[in-house]
């Protein structure tokens, strides 16, 4: 831009028209940017009306050993599996592209209808395009003895997270 130090001759000084013109353009650009930023902000609501990520699923005694419970699939998209030694909760989101796999009891596997990915009972992928195991979600006992699931906390096997506390609920009693 113009060099103000050399002023005096009138050649290199900004004229009033230059200054006002520049100011006008800066104002227009600033207004457009502010409007664009406001539009982007407006596309992200402060509140979403989506199902809660944490919920109680009842006391442990309501689940049978060796069962893959589908009771909470429809509302929360989570399977709850009980073994001899405890519980884990699998997220019902295929790790390929996010469809919902189906639990095929007789074949002892989860099978995704979209592109054919297959997962074993523990969630490990073994066929189809899925690149990694199903994710487990946080499962703990709440204060009132019920099982509490929190889908916001996820555990990925390939990151070694299935050994972390919260990924598995040890339980062998009948209470």
């Amino acid at each position: 831009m113009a060099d103000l130090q050399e002023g005096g001759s009138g050649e290199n000084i900004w004229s009033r028209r230059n200054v006002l013109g520049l100011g006008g353009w800066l104002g227009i650009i600033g207004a457009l940017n502010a409007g664009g930023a406001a539009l982007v902000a407006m596309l992200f609501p402060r509140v979403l009306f989506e199902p809660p990520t944490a919920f109680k699923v009842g006391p442990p005694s309501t689940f049978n050993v060796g069962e893959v419970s589908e009771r909470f699939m429809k509302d929360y998209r989570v399977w709850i599996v009980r073994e001899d030694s405890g519980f884990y909760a699998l997220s019902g989101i295929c790790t390929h592209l996010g469809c919902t796999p189906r639990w095929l009891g007789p074949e002892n596997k989860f099978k995704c209808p979209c592109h054919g990915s297959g997962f074993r009972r523990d969630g490990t992928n073994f066929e189809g395009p899925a690149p990694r195991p199903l994710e487990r979600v946080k499962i703990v006992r709440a204060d009132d003895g019920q099982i509490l699931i929190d889908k916001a906390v996820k555990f990925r096997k390939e990151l070694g997270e299935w050994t972390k506390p919260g990924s598995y609920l040890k339980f062998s009693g009948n209470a």
Partner: protein
Amino acid sequence: MPDLQKPAKQSLADRIATSAVWRSVFRHGYADTPRNRVLQVSANVWLHLHPSKVRRHGIRYRHTWCAGGLTFLLYLVTVVTGVILMFYYRPTQEFAYYDIKYLDFDIPFGILMRNMHRWAAHGMIIFIWLHMFRVFMTGSYKPPREFNWVVGVNLLVLTMLMSFTGYLLPWDQLAIWAVTVGTNMARATPLIGHEGPFGPELGMSPRYDIRALLLGGSIVGPPALMRFYVLHCIAIPIVVSILMILHFWRVRKDGGISGPL
């Protein structure tokens, strides 16, 4: 303030203004003369969408296949049938699926309008590819028409986006899961997706990234239906219409339909 700028500091602007990309968009400068001002009105795109004359080869089917024209015709079909469908369709969780059923079974010619809309959309994609193939094989993408090729590629992408957004509107299992899959790919967008390269480093999360912007939330739910509806019926068609006008205008301004080889 062009008279105040020193040559050394103009170099970047000059380099941009003389670059091949800039020259492909604006082939020559604009001399602000009274004559040009009159011409700006009389040669205005709105007044001159239709050419005053075409060359003989331009109307030979074997040269053009009329693929671009058929694409435009099919676009008009989708616009007309789409507006008719809008009389009955409500983009909400409660009504969307049943309005489609209603259209199919209880509206006279409703199923015809719906199928015309769908097949015209499929046909548009097919004819765009044929058009691109023809333009490529006849070398019509070469200068001075290279900018119009770029406009055409943008039209192709926008047309596919119209198809994609329209796919969700029936709100059936196919629609929901296809869009689930499609928008999950957006997670991996570089910089602006929460699973893409440099996405998490830039603060992207499932709640705030490009996918959430598309869906209006973190799942394919009612907000996503509304967003896709608005994009499908309003936003993308407006942009496409503007680009089509530019596209047709540039065909003529770049020397008409290219001659046979």
